[in-house]
């Protein structure tokens, strides 16, 4: 029996969570969490070094017979391709940084906090590693529970409302996906809900349409697409920093990943039917999200709304269906994961000192905290799509694809970029420039070594991916062209 790399990576955090629950009294919890997340990240090293980019299909497959009820046979099957690998690594990295960000911020019920965080890590990695729909669904739902607790227990003043809203929205979407998944199982019982075999299911156009709507309900809530985005500002704002990082960094990508993994390959005809509406609501999300962002006075809420706009670019890229734009969309998912996580970390770090999220309470931070100001500038510029930083490449590829599909889509998307630059630069101006706000005098705002260490990997990644995007894109060429072939031959 070979060493089951993916299984180890997926369930190592769960083991850590169990360890914390049994052994992690008081301060010991965070050390166990740190050790577990570091070990998980280390366990990913053979995954990255052993992955062959040019090979099509899944690699590092762990396969075992699992469930057989009646005539239903479902295997336990994990595997990675070029699309899922970057997300697995990103999940591992962000959870580690979450532990760093929560080190002193979380003072109550630490044991449960870190256990929930690690359960969430297992769910994230498992979701991206799952190669059948059943397993995907299990991790999809498993993800909701720890995040519900993270928001509801350690969140801000309005946390219970935000947590319940988050849970009900996602649950309402996912139960429809459950029916869709069961319908797929009934339509093609031999496939055992395996993604690859499901792609060969022959379904009528009507069936595909209904299934697409069912999956859309689940994925659109997670992305979130306009108009089911309303849970996001509440959840992101009320969540503790680690919760916001996981939400913005990974959870939002699950929806888009679902489109790539399930909706596009299995329901190609339905995708053609819904192409225009999907493109239009993507652009609506970009523009509407950007304008709403401009109006925010709360830093966290501002970044939360900017996510709606940025995720609009991702869905826009996916539904243009051409190779470069889809690759751009996936790259942009990674980019947004890095940048929004970094921005939430920045906000969380300063909130720990000032206990205010109102932009008007800040100002002139650059005078007392030059390192913080520099890092925030880097991340704001990256989010705005500044050339040389990571978002630029992703947005460029997506907008290029949009122009090829319909010129007006591209034009509107560019307007979204302009608005994005506006709200980010304006945010930076209000927070960092000018005279130091009187309320902040006497506070030690500069970051400490642990915080700099937490932000540094993300800053380096933002620069590296901006200068050498091919390091992610090279993983995507093979699987995306495979995806293209499946869509092109219905």
């Amino acid at each position, binding site marked *: 029996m070979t060493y089951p790399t993916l299984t180890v990576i997926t369930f190592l955090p769960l083991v850590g969570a169990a360890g914390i629950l049994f052994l992690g*009294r008081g301060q010991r919890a965070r050390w166990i969490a740190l050790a577990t997340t570091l070990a998980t990240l280390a366990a990913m090293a053979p995954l990255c070094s052993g992955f062959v980019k040019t090979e099509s299909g899944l690699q590092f497959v762990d396969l075992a017979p*699992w*469930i*057989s*009820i*009646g*005539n*239903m046979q479902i295997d336990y099957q994990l595997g990675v391709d070029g699309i899922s690998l970057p997300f697995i690594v990103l999940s591992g990295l962000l959870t580690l940084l979450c532990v760093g960000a929560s080190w002193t911020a979380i003072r109550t*019920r630490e044991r*449960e906090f870190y256990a929930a965080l690690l359960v969430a890590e297992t769910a994230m990695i498992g979701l991206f590693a799952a190669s059948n729909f059943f397993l995907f*669904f*299990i991790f999809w*739902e*498993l993800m*909701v*529970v720890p995040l*519900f*607790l993270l928001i*509801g*227990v350690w969140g801000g003043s309005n*946390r*219970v409302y935000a*947590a*319940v809203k988050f*849970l*009900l929205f996602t*649950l*309402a979407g996912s*139960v*429809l996906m*459950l*029916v869709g998944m*069961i*319908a797929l*199982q*009934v339509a093609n019982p031999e496939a055992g809900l395996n993604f690859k075999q499901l792609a060969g299911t022959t379904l009528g156009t009507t069936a595909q349409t*209904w299934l697409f709507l069912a999956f859309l309900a689940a994925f659109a809530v997670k992305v979130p697409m306009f108009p089911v985005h309303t849970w996001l500002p509440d959840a992101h704002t009320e969540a503790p920093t680690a919760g916001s990082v996981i939400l913005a960094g990974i959870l939002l990508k699950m929806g888009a990943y679902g489109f790539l993994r399930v909706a596009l390959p299995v329901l190609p005809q339905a995708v053609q039917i819904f192409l225009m509406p999907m493109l239009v609501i993507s652009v609506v999300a970009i523009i509407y999200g950007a304008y709403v962002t401009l109006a925010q006075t709360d830093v966290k809420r501002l970044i939360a709304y900017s996510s709606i706009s940025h995720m609009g670019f991702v869905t826009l890229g996916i539904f243009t269906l051409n190779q470069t734009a889809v690759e751009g969309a996936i790259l942009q998912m990674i980019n947004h994961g890095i940048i929004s996580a970094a921005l939430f970390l920045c906000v969380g770090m300063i909130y720990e000192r000032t206990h205010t999220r109102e932009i008007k309470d800040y100002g002139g931070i650059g005078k007392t905290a030059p390192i913080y100001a520099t890092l925030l500038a880097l991340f704001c510029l990256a989010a705005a799509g500044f050339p040389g930083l990571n978002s630029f490449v992703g947005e460029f590829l997506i907008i290029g694809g949009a122009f090829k599909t319909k010129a007006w889509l591209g034009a509107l998307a560019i307007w979204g970029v302009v608005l994005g630059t506006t709200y980010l630069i304006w945010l930076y101006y209000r927070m960092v420039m000018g005279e130091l706000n009187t309320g902040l005098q006497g506070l030690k705002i500069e970051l400490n070594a642990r915080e700099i260490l937490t932000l540094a990997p993300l800053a380096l990644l933002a620069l590296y991916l901006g200068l050498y995007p091919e390091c992610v894109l090279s993983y995507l060429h093979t699987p995306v062209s495979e995806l293209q072939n499946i869509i092109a031959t219905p």
Partner: protein
Amino acid sequence: MTPVSITDLALLIPELILVGMALALLLGASRIQTATLATVGTVLAALVAALTAGWLMLEPPRLGFSGMFTVDGYSQFFKVLIASALALTTLLSVKRVDSESVRPAEYHALLLLASTGMMLAVSSLDLITLYLGLELTTLCSYVLVGIMVDRPNSNEAAIKYFLLGSFASALFLYGIALIYGATGTTDFEAITAILSKSGPGMDSLFMVGASLLAAGLAFKIAAVPFHAWAPDAYEGAHAPVAAYLATASKAAGLAALGRVCWAIFKTPGNELLPEVSMVLAGLAVLSIVVGSVVALAQTNIKRLLAYSSIAHAGYALLGFISGTAAGTEATMTYAYFYVFMTLGAFGVVIALEDRGETLEGYQGLAVERPKTAALMLLFLLSLTGIPPTAGFVAKFVVILSVVQEGYYALAILAVVCSVITAFVYLRVAVMMYMKEPESTALPDPDNDPSSRLPLAVSAALAVAALVTLIGGIFPGILTSWAVAP
């Protein structure tokens, strides 16, 4: 009529064990003053009965008592389930029986006899045997609900339950009489034979009889619109009895309903009669919708669990609608997991004693008693149907069975209502985890003696939690026993 032989009696071993223990307890009633002895005896009897029932399952199906009684995989599956529920309920009763001045011998004897009735019912192949089995169960249940004689609300619940229950029994009996009038027999096989001769144009007398029969059975599983007794009875009864009614009694009712559908209501082509299918679908939809919506308004946990159990009866019925073997197996799986997760949830209510009865009692539980709160969260997630818990697998298989028959609207309704029930259970979770405890002096959760549970209660909770988890992660181990007759 052939005389009863030894081989016939051999089929009854699990039932005889329970009856034997019940009689022993009654004979020694005056000597048994504390619950311990009665508990040990009852749990042992239940375990031995479960083992023998499981052992009989390994043999090929057999008939006894002139074809009135069968021992097949279906009946034995439910017998094992009923005996397990009996064992867990007995363990959960430990503290309550001592503190509520309930006479332990009588209490346990009644539980044993009620279980015997259920076991007889699930094995019946004759309407009269079925009636006798169910009636033995309900008679014991009336007394069990009112067993706390010095509590007025317990008496009130027992009287309500008795009035409605006897009405339902009368309907059931009247249904049997009409079916006998239409067919001249009470034997399932003979009824089917006569019906297949007369063809699809069915006797209206028979149809009225069948409807009354169905109403009587729907009462047993508390399906809407025959559910009104459940919330009152659960609220008034002491918690272990409520747990027992919600689980074993419901499982037995489902088993009997499944047997009747499977054995009598058949078209000549061996399919479920479309009319019956419609009725079942109606019962299921009403139960799911009413159960989940009304549960939203409850602040008493036992009432909340009562309405949730009504909704769950609806979900379980979904499997029967298709009339296929796969559908019946889905319902069996559902009943199986439902019994354990509901016993678990009731177990937490019992463990918390008076505090556990109202929603407010759960405030800050996660801080004060983290382990109990975590267990409750697990059971609530399972009841909601969130993976990787057994509740998800249960929901998955019943919805699979309706989708397989093309009833998409039913499937969508079922899952949408599961979001409503999610909100119901969520309120408890929010109370436990997201509200601060009322008492400001924080006890140390690991060393506080008041948060120690009696060993028996912990054991029962552990078993329920284990089944809930294993059932969710490796359902095959547990569900391979669920085989339709």
